[in-house]
């Protein structure tokens, strides 16, 4: 069934979109990731204009992270104070990101920037996950091998403007928190992702937050940042496609439930290696397209945008 997307102005198969939403939903349910970093490139591949893909994906992430954070709120695993400070940074970052996006759209370089960001971040994250999960599998074969204790970065402790975060049992400077929030906000606006895949490691390794509150707090921040990003894209770039978002949502919601169930049956290390391979695959395809001479060197953009 073909469906005409009013903002993207292309006609695509509705079942393909539901399927994509479902597929990424399964992955996000299995691996506990938002899935934006996989969905946005997939939308590029099926011919959705990158500007629309990025803005619409931000809208879809609002839904999936809201659904996730409700569960975490019930379990009381959200540090609201930490989330709010991250959020302040995030909103500033998002506003900057949307402006950068708009300027680059006018210069005709936005596709390049978005794709480069993807290649760099997917490459780094994919490689790290691959190495880490290979190590984990090796460790599990050699029982008794010592697990390295987690290091807390001391420079974070030395910064001024300290705040107490009761839920995270931390007394740290608000500067690194704001900076992490801002970095994730910029990425959210440019890449159309929630940024959880960057924020979660940053919260654990830089801030030293306890793992149990990390996911809920990052989801809490992501809702507001992606919501704000959606609003900024909608009012400045007119690139949020509600029909596209809705179709992806329906697939994503169903997929997430299936994924959560599948995830329980598989081993964590094997899951992570699968995810790493997939991330590297998407990264490789994007990099390949940038390096190999395209069959059409010219492209048409409307003058006004």
């Amino acid at each position, binding site marked *: 069934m073909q469906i005409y997307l009013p903002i993207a102005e292309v006609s695509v198969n509705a079942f393909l979109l539901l399927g994509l939403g479902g597929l990424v939903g399964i992955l996000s349910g299995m691996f506990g990731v938002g899935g934006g970093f996989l969905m946005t490139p997939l939308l590029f591949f099926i011919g959705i204009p990158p500007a629309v893909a990025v803005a619409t994906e931000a809208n879809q992430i609002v839904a999936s992270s809201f659904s996730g954070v409700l569960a975490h709120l019930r379990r009381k695993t959200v540090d609201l104070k930490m989330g709010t400070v991250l959020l302040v940074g995030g909103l500033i970052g998002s506003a900057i990101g949307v402006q950068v996006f708009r300027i680059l759209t006018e210069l005709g370089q936005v596709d*390049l920037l978005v794709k480069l960001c993807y290649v760099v971040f997917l490459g780094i994250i994919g490689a790290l996950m691959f190495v880490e999960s290979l190590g984990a599998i090796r460790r599990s074969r050699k029982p008794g091998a010592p697990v390295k204790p987690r290091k807390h970065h001391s420079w974070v402790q030395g910064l001024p403007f300290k705040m107490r975060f009761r839920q995270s049992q931390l007394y740290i400077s608000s500067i690194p928190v704001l900076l992490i929030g801002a970095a994730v906000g910029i990425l959210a606006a440019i890449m159309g992702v929630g940024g959880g895949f960057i924020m979660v490691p940053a919260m654990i390794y830089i801030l030293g937050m306890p793992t149990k509150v990390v996911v809920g707090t990052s989801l809490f921040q992501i809702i507001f940042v992606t919501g704000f990003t959606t609003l900024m894209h909608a009012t400045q770039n007119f690139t949020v496609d509600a029909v596209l978002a809705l179709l992806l949502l329906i697939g994503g919601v169903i997929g997430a439930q299936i994924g959560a169930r599948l995830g329980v049956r598989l081993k964590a290390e094997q899951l992570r290696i699968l995810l790493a391979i997939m991330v590297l695959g998407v990264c490789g395809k994007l990099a390949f397209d940038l390096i190999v001479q395209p069959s059409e060197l010219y492209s048409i953009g409307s003058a006004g945008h």
Partner: protein
Amino acid sequence: MIRVLAILLAFVAPVAFAATEEVVGALSQNKVSITANFDGSEIFIFGAVKRTAPIPEDIGPLHVVITVQGPRQEVTVRRKERVLGIWVNTDSVTVDEAPAYYAIATTGPLTKILSETERLRHGIGFDKAIRTVGARADVEDPESFTEAVVRIRQKNGLYTEADSAINLREDTLFATSVALPANLVEGSYTTRMYLVRERAVVGTTETAITVQKDGFERWIYTMAHEQALLYGILSIAVALAAGYIASEAFRLLRR
């Protein structure tokens, strides 16, 4: 005296005949609605030659040219070049006027049945429909950019040229069909029908097809552009509602 008249008539006649050949045309539809399940459309174009005298025998054969032209747009064409190993948009040219859609159907090869000057005068043909005036000075080959517009849009099914696609019967009735692809732009699409004799246009008529988003699509598009803030808030509200429903459904299923 009679001989003079006869000679005069012989001169006037073809012109007079030509002038008395008028084209009457119609379309299968004057309105194309882009709705949610819009997947392209086909327009059937037909017409007849109206004459007050018999079909002239002593001048060249009758040809028909039909063009359908979408709204004119200003577009920016960009060219990629390899910079530090990756392909980056570098040069760009602004094309002042390029129709969003352009279809030509004829009874014979376009350049054979119509002269260059007539094509220029009536703006018939891809090369005549695209205008580049303000090409940036530092680009050496602005023509390659206009050629790229034609090439890319031909690939997308937006520009089509179908020689001998018009079925002309007894030099009087003609018909053809033109495909409108799914990736249409809204606006007024001008359909022009030309009668051609001896490489010159002898008669022409014009009708318009209105292409517009309709129903739900129209509503979303208008709101996204005219009430962007409300649209953004609504998008988020829908997302939050969906997230809430998903979370509740999840809980019910787990019980």
